[in-house]
């Protein structure tokens, strides 16, 4: 009974819309589809979407590991507050995040007044997109690495130390390998979020075709021209990619669970 209801709700909310999306795309001929999906503007948008998401996820990988390490291993005043602040990008509406980042880094903004004279423009540029994606994806790596680091057995580190390795060697050869699965999962989550992100980027990027236009913004632009077919074609490309990401993340999670210590 509840199963029936679940399936009903899922099919109204998920299955039928997705089918509609693919149906609409299938009414296009192959040429039309390819023409919509592989224009120069679309290529620039994919390139930017994936590039920015990838760089942001890499930055998050490093920052996330650092934050998780500091939060688990060290104690300092205000640690609990910092710990919950890490979740803020998840709780804060993306529109607010985008708005603030846009106004922080413009010439008159709090940070922009120091950075713009140095030639660093953090608003309406690709750098701005990466920055805001770093903000949005910050919690993922921290939250995947943190529990693993907490459960880490101190004995392996003791063994390394008693065998005469330095702290750095112990970290590189003993701790880091056990964290790989969690790191990769966090990276994939941040990357997936970065690909789909729209609300914050729309404020920061300035949406110039070929320059600072990401794929979801291109879809909206096509929609506003009432070019539903073309918009759907690009949407299908993104959908297929997010399916692949979903399968990948599921695999990774199962893998990292098997590797938990």
């Amino acid at each position: 009974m509840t199963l029936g209801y679940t399936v009903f709700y899922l099919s109204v909310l998920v299955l039928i819309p997705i089918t509609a999306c693919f149906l609409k795309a299938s009414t296009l001929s192959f040429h039309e589809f390819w023409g919509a999906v592989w224009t120069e503007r679309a290529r620039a948008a994919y390139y930017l979407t994936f590039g920015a998401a990838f760089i942001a996820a890499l930055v998050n990988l490093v920052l996330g590991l650092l934050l998780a390490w500091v939060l688990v291993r060290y104690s300092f005043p205000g640690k609990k507050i910092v710990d919950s602040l890490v979740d803020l990008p998840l709780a804060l509406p993306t529109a607010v995040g985008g708005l603030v980042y846009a106004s922080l880094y413009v010439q008159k903004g709090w940070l922009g007044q120091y950075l713009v004279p140095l030639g660093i423009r953090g608003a309406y540029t690709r750098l701005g997109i990466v920055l805001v994606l770093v903000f949005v994806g910050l919690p993922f790596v921290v939250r995947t690495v943190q529990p693993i680091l907490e459960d880490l057995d101190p004995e392996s580190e003791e063994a390394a130390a008693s065998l005469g390795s330095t702290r750095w060697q112990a970290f590189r050869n003993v701790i880091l390998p056990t964290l790989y699965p969690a790191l990769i999962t966090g990276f994939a989550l941040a990357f997936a979020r970065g690909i789909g992100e729209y609300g914050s980027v729309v404020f920061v990027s300035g949406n110039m075709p070929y320059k600072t236009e990401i794929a979801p913004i291109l879809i909206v632009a096509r929609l506003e021209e009432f070019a539903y077919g073309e918009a759907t074609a690009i949407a299908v490309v993104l959908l297929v990619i997010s399916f692949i990401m979903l399968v990948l993340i599921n695999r990774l999670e199962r893998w990292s669970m098997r590797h938990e210590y």
Partner: protein
Amino acid sequence: MSTEALVKSSAVTLTIRRHAQEDAAWVRWSLTLFALAVVGLLVVVPVVNVFAEALSEGLRAYWNNLFADPDTRQSIFLTLTVVPIALVANVVFGLAAAWAVARFNFPGRTLLTALIDLPFSVSPVVAGLMFVLIFGLQGYLGPLLRRDGYSVMPYLISILGVGLFILLFFLFRPNSHQRSQAFWKYPWLSVPIGSAAVFSLLFFIQQYFHIWPRNQSLKIIFATPGLVLATAFVTFPFVARELIPVMEAVGADEELAAVSLGASGWRMFWDVTVPNIKWGLVYGIILCNARAIGEFGAVYVVSGHIAGKTDTMPLRIEKLFQEYNLPGSFAVASLLTLVAIFTLIAKATLERKIPTTAGLPEPKANETQL
């Protein structure tokens, strides 16, 4: 080996033990400072900036920005209508889905859990587009709804009524067999007959009293129903994903005990299941609520941006931003930031509460997604 050497070596291992997990002071301090700088720069400065900008022209201007502008007022009101509806729908769905996944084993169970995760990886813009394709003017159902939109309502309501009837039937069916009357005894007979009766009764009432206007278009896209649908799509995983691990951890034993002692399904649910999963449920609702209020991409596509009609708060922020009315947009943003901060506080409090009451497994990667 002399005892002296032994004592010495054990002292050495002790110091190694103590120092094995400890970094040099300068490493500790520089890493901590760097981490604080990262959080400060990425998170704290923006939040402070929101309030500084919102209040930059004084409290009175702030107040006027929020409540003197009718469009902004309307957007707050709209968000307060859309979010609760989506929330209620998702809580009911989350309970049902978690129940099905945690208590039963059926073919396609893995597929179901994968589908529940889907909105996490689908771009919100694509989600919005899917609904436009179905209900939009050029969509699959759009033209039908436009011509005589409300003609579907009697069917919809009647089908919902039948669903409710079947649900109530199985919930209130007493399971001790001595007391059972014929009505409860033969579900394969009484359910179809009852369903048919409920359906025709509801249908008749609606037609007879002309509840729904005829030959008018039922707007879904560029209207509130579309906003609700899009919001519900983006946020439905939260409650379900929080509840599934909790229900699996609690197990079915207590429920089985309740049923075997003669409780009806309804009583078992309220007296046994709900208290067990209470905090997980609250947690899911909080996360779902935060995301629903802030949803931008999906809502952006389906709303149509009719000022004072279909702008939710995040959309209003964007519009004010485009109009170069920065204080106004920051004023709305500050409200949403307050909601986010409350969410974090509530989350921290709950996390302290959960381990003592329900024995929750620690949150995994996907469960922290908001």
